[in-house]
């Protein structure tokens, strides 16, 4: 961990700007600020935020206002309503969204997926890095290359696995699981975990393989098993990498549309927010009052988590993928 963990202090998007980065490398870098740079930075940041802000403001405007004129008119003619939100979240009319239930589905899909992906990727990364075996390099490279398999093509075989089980010839060695109702979440978890392993193993391996070898050697001399080394030495040290992969994975699963579409379908019992939102976008044409509030609901959780945890995100990534 000697290298990168460059201090990137980014606070959780709080309105109060924290003091500039404080390097932890021991040396204090003097921060030279320039007024020109500050102005440019702020202008661009604002520019970057305007599209999202427009959506946010629109979501609070009455439906007729949204249709009649642009959201910037809000500043001269402020009219605020929560109708759009109550409609998409709780209305019982079938056409209006009922996003509350889908929101819960997104949570149920995301949490176990992130946990499993983290654990399995960390185990594999550790094994590749610190349990010597022939062909370790090739296994690693192979896993990296799997990143580019288009997901679209993996969907049908996986579905078959769930509907038919595993057969060799005519004998069924693993029967197809009977999944009904909420149990169908399991298929979504499985698919997501499969698809996340290449990037997960890649990121975590880069981090784990940088750990000082002497630590492992010493522990091995003492007769420690790999399980103990993993728990007592590796795990405490790879926190940042785990955090950054967890955030990556969380965003990917929460925001995913394709996998959810195929494995959860339009079934309101298991389908996540993105599926419903995409449906609204398609069927509701220009009904921006529903789209804006719906989109904002789907955005708000990942944005909060992301902003709260972004410093870990960067730290983990830096030590990982960025050491070319």
């Amino acid at each position, binding site marked *: 961990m000697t290298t990168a963990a460059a201090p990137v202090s980014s606070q959780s998007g709080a309105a109060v700007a924290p003091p500039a980065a404080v390097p932890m490398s021991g040396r204090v870098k003097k921060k030279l600020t320039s007024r020109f740079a500050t102005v440019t930075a702020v202008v661009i940041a604002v520019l970057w935020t305007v599209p999202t802000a427009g959506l946010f403001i629109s979501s609070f405007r009455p439906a007729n206002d949204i249709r009649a004129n642009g959201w910037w008119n809000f500043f001269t003619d402020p009219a605020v309503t929560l109708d759009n939100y109550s409609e998409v979240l709780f209305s019982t009319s079938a056409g209006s969204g009922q996003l509350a239930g889908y929101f819960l589905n997104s949570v149920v899909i995301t949490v176990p997926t992130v946990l499993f992906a983290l654990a399995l990727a960390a185990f594999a990364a550790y094994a590749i890095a610190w349990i010597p075996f022939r062909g370790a390099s090739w296994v690693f490279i192979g896993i990296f290359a799997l990143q580019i398999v288009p997901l679209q093509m993996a969907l049908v075989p996986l579905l078959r696995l769930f509907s038919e089980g595993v057969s060799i010839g005519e004998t069924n060695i693993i029967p197809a699981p009977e999944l009904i109702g909420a149990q169908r*979440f399991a298929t979504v978890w499985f698919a997501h975990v499969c698809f996340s392993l290449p990037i997960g193993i890649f990121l975590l391996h880069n981090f784990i393989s940088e750990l000082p070898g002497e630590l492992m050697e010493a522990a091995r001399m003492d007769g420690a098993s790999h399980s103990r080394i993993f728990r007592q030495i590796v795990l405490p040290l790879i926190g940042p990498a785990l955090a950054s992969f967890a955030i990556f994975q969380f965003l990917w699963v929460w925001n995913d549309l394709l996998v959810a579409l195929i494995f959860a379908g339009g079934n309101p019992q298991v389908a996540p927010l993105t599926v419903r939102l995409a449906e609204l976008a398609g069927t509701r044409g220009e009904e921006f009052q529903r789209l804006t509030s719906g989109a904002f609901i789907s955005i708000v959780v990942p944005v909060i988590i992301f902003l709260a945890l972004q410093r870990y995100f960067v730290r983990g990534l830096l030590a990982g993928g960025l050491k070319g």
Partner: protein
Amino acid sequence: MNETQPKLLMLMYGIIAFFAVVGILLLVVDRAPKRGREKVQLVAFLAPALLLLAVGLLIPAIRTVILSFKGPFSDTWVGLDNYAWMFTNGDSRRILLNTAAWVVLVPTLATTVGLLYAIVIDKARGEAFAKALVFMPMAISLVGASIIWKFVYTVRPADDNQIGLANQLLVLVGLEPYRFLQDPPWNTLFLIVILIWIQAGFAMVILSAAIKAVSADVIEAARLDGVNAWQMFRNVTLPSIRPAVVVVMVTITITTLKAFDIVRTTTGGQFETGVVATALYDQAFVFGEVGKGSALAVLLFVLVLPIVVYQVGVLRSQREIR
């Protein structure tokens, strides 16, 4: 809300399953017999991941390659017909050109914007706040981002109020409203802007951290030599962060090739905005042309291959050094 309970129950099962799996794996490793212990441990750690990778990605990939040589019902061999179709039909040229535009423009522009911003922000006050704002789109789903931008690009007739920001700006400076999503080939550029908007923040944060990691000694030494800002950037900063730039570009490229949500949400691939990923989905799932869809998937695979080969080269040299 009687629907909530089974869901929460399922969530609980998922978490219990997680602890069970992890616990059992670690236990196996701990309790392994002395003889062949190393092997047992290796298998326990590596096998679950490899199994999932094989089932979820490797086997499907092989199957796809096989299907790409078969007909629509996968029951006849058609040789290279699907590939021939891919390069000869009229729509494909447009789709391949669009994909090329995406793959070239998104990584380069997103990285460039990110790098410039990283440099500027290094000297600015309120760094964390500004960074968070630019970084934020990264957390928004591609569907959400597409809705945001569809709203920005919305067009109304010239004599009506514009409700889209982009056209309001055009009208303000005295121009006619423009159909951003409807005029090929420029509409593809406006879609590309959406992904740049998302990915520039990612590039910025990573590169900014890389810039800060450049050794202070080196910078100090250079400064004592009296180099100007440009020389400093060209000869000191850039070489130091080159690996970070490469990784950022590779990551964004892979994301770009796979992302089809933007095109699907904004234009549905109409107005000549289709890309390989949307064509693949249409052929394989909507039109039932499994063979042609598979051939497009293989093409996607081949397009990313050079990047992976390059990256593998880097990885191998790394591992050998170690």
